[in-house]
């Protein structure tokens, strides 16, 4: 299974990454960014499908929030009603998950390729040799320079990169995270919105900077794609209309009650 994985997915990605480094003046940092862009472009149809599903889900949010409000005390009924609404709209709530799952092996291969190509230990360099094609453009890439801008791509613990990864991840998440009227759900979303960037910010300090560069590049490309697909900054805006309306409505409701 491992051999099949290497043969079909890992080795092609790894060799293209190294060849790109050779083409881009032995700049491995640029090669990581270039390959991230190429992979993003290749899987763009899947990403679009995922984003469109997410967008459609977001468009239904007012309706869903209404239901959440209406059936706040009856979770079972709420689930039934939500499923009915989704069905009527011809939507599958898991529709945005499948494209993501299909992309997963590609991301794993990209991650493994970067880690292998960096060859931070002698074992890694030896192992790398077993995955290389005998292309001249690949042979000429060695030794891969681990320096890019201020970064040592094989080194750990770059604080600036940690902040960039955390910040870009927060922006990307914020753009797509729809506000919820359900207090519990909203606080959960808020927590996730902070936790994930923080967690990956910490990962940057533990993993080689080359991998963190891939995360940062991937986040930035993700933001750009989302900006053009969803037509703007989405929920990143400080007072998005989708959030403002329910908030005002809820204020009015509380005034009425008092």
């Amino acid at each position: 299974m491992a051999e099949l994985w290497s043969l079909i997915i890992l080795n092609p990605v790894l060799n293209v990454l190294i060849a790109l480094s050779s083409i881009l003046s032995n700049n491995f940092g640029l090669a990581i960014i270039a390959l991230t862009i190429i992979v993003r472009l290749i899987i763009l149809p899947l990403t679009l499908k995922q984003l469109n599903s997410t967008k459609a889900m977001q468009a239904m949010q007012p309706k869903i929030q209404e239901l959440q409000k209406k059936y706040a005390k009856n979770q079972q009924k709420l689930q039934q009603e939500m499923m009915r609404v989704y069905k009527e709209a011809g939507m599958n709530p898991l529709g945005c998950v499948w494209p993501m799952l299909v992309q997963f092996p590609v991301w794993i291969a990209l991650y493994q390729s970067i880690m292998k190509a960096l060859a931070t230990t002698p074992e890694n360099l030896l192992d790398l040799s077993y995955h290389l094609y005998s292309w001249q453009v690949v042979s000429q890439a060695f030794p891969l320079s681990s320096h890019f801008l201020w970064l040592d791509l094989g080194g750990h613990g770059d604080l600036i990169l940690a902040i960039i990864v955390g910040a870009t991840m927060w922006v990307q998440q914020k753009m797509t995270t729809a506000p919820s009227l359900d207090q519990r759900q909203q606080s959960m979303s808020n927590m996730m919105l902070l936790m994930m960037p923080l967690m990956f910010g910490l990962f940057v300090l533990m993993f080689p900077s080359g991998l963190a560069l891939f995360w940062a590049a991937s986040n930035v490309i993700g933001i750009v794609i989302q900006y053009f697909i969803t037509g703007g900054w989405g929920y990143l805006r400080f007072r998005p209309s989708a959030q403002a309306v329910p908030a005002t409505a809820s204020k009015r409701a509380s005034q009425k009650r008092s």
Partner: protein
Amino acid sequence: MLASCAPGGAQPAQGWSGTVLNNDGILYAASMDGKVVAVNPSTRNLEWSYTIVASSSSSGFMSCGQTSVPTAIYGTPAVDGNLVYIGSYSGKVYALSTSARSQNLPFPQTRNGEWHYPRTNEVIGDIVGSPVVSEDAIYVTSSNGKLYSLGKDFGDLNWESDVLGEKLWTTPVIEGDTIYVSTFDGHIYTLSTETGNLLPVSFEAEVGFVSSPVLYGDIIFVGSFDNKLCAIKIGDNKLLWEFPGGRWFWATPVAKEGVVYAGCLDGKIYAISVETGKELWEFDTESPIVSSPVLMDRIAVVASESGDVYIFDTTTEPKDKVMTPVKTIFVDALIRGSLYCHEGIVYIRAQDNCLYALDIDKGNVSWKLPLTIK
């Protein structure tokens, strides 16, 4: 991002130390758990061991403080008199006294001549190559790209070279008052043993060098990243010939009587004419060859990574350029460290952290000693 949680990206540094038999009849090697060990091959007794630890904060920044973990050791120890020299992957060079270590005294026993360099908590960068000992100095390469010359007696720094490459993982070669070192970026540098200054004799290739160099007369043999074995004439500073393999020539080649023996990661051992660069014979072990072959009289011993050790009679005529081994001995472990041959016995520190003694005449494993001490 979750893809990063998947395994298979990187392998930890474990080391693959070679073995060396000193004229005191004791075998020295380094284990996979950071120990330098002295073994008496006649009694198979572990005479002493010393664990080299590295202060580590890499495991993390989230931990409360520094921890001490055994370091990986890749080089083969160098023995000179009463002292065993070794470089650690944690970036220090050690001189261990055999008498102080056999009494298990605290390290360093300066009156026994023990030292470590740097003497402070600083490190000089991961050391992968073996230390090389000359009459009055010891030379080590470091991942910081520099070559160091240290005094044998007290570990004083004689000199450190300029940065020769992004990282130096190869073992240098000394010939007279010149040191030869190959770099990953395709240079062969020569330096003065006295001053560390670069000498005008140098060679620059279009492709990097993956193996340590070996000198044979006025020719340097070295493996390159484009799957070739290169022969470079020292005086002319030019490529004499290059021999194509299927993969990298990772292991340092050995040369004797006009023939260079080079193990390749494509699984083949090649015997090549020094003069012409033409293949004399080959044999496919069907597993990458990571450790250097060893020559003893008319015997060539070659170990494949999968654990097969092949004995060749170099005087035998090959059939259609394919040599048949006279014996094959199977070691049930990965072999990556350098072999050592003495009086018909081949010593190997394999990747199962055991020391093996192989009897060439009998064609079997004579004994096996686990180096993992509980």
